[in-house]
């Protein structure tokens, strides 16, 4: 299990390799990356977070996913700072014997990150910037796992 809150970008290949290395019991690796989308003239996004609490929350979410889906391992990397359109914000990886658990674990991690990780996004179109509103939809999506 690896958690990282960082400014720099990541390599999916390197992270997968580090998780899989030395073990022959993994059949399924699911990954999800979230990217900055350039809707409505948005050119970049700034992510603020709550240092200390963020790491605690990511750790708790990852542990929960491991248990719920009997994952063999998982990873969450969440970036902060200013990111341009097309840049990666978040990466989750899940390892399992079966593809169903790997997919479900990754989807769970993403759904929970949306409502349980203390990050706030501010979008900018180059002239003005605006805090992103939380989506009621994300709250409902998260609740379906309860």
């Amino acid at each position: 299990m690896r958690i990282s809150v960082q400014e720099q970008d990541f390599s999916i290949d390197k992270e997968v390799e580090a998780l899989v290395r030395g073990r022959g019991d993994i059949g399924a690796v699911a990954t999800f990356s979230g990217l900055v989308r350039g809707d409505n003239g948005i050119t970049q996004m700034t992510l603020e977070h709550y240092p200390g609490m963020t790491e605690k929350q990511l750790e708790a979410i990852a542990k929960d996913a491991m248990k719920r889906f009997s994952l063999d391992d998982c990873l969450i990397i969440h970036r902060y700072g200013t990111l341009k359109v097309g840049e990666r914000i978040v990466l989750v990886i899940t390892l399992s014997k079966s593809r169903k658990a790997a997919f479900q674990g990754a989807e769970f991690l993403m759904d929970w990150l949306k409502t349980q990780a203390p990050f706030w996004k501010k979008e900018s179109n180059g002239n003005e910037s605006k805090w992103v509103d939380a989506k009621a939809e994300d709250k409902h999506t998260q609740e379906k796992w309860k």
Partner: protein
Amino acid sequence: MQILYFSRVREAIGKDEETLTPPADVTTVDGLLNWLSTKDEGYEQAFKNRDGLRAAVNQTFSPMDAPIKHGDEIAIFPPVTGG
């Protein structure tokens, strides 16, 4: 008591962190926000719409009526938008 502000709340108040000692009758997050609102119009504006606020006590998401005490770390912020 250490109080942290994030996102819109941080911008509205104009600081990200402060250490305060509220009076003894301030025993919940809500009570803290009420006390701060009486002190200064900036707080009053920032805390006006309570539905749009969330809190964490000692780095754990907590309801607005959660108890708080001397030495706690309280954070006030809008609903999170990570992931």
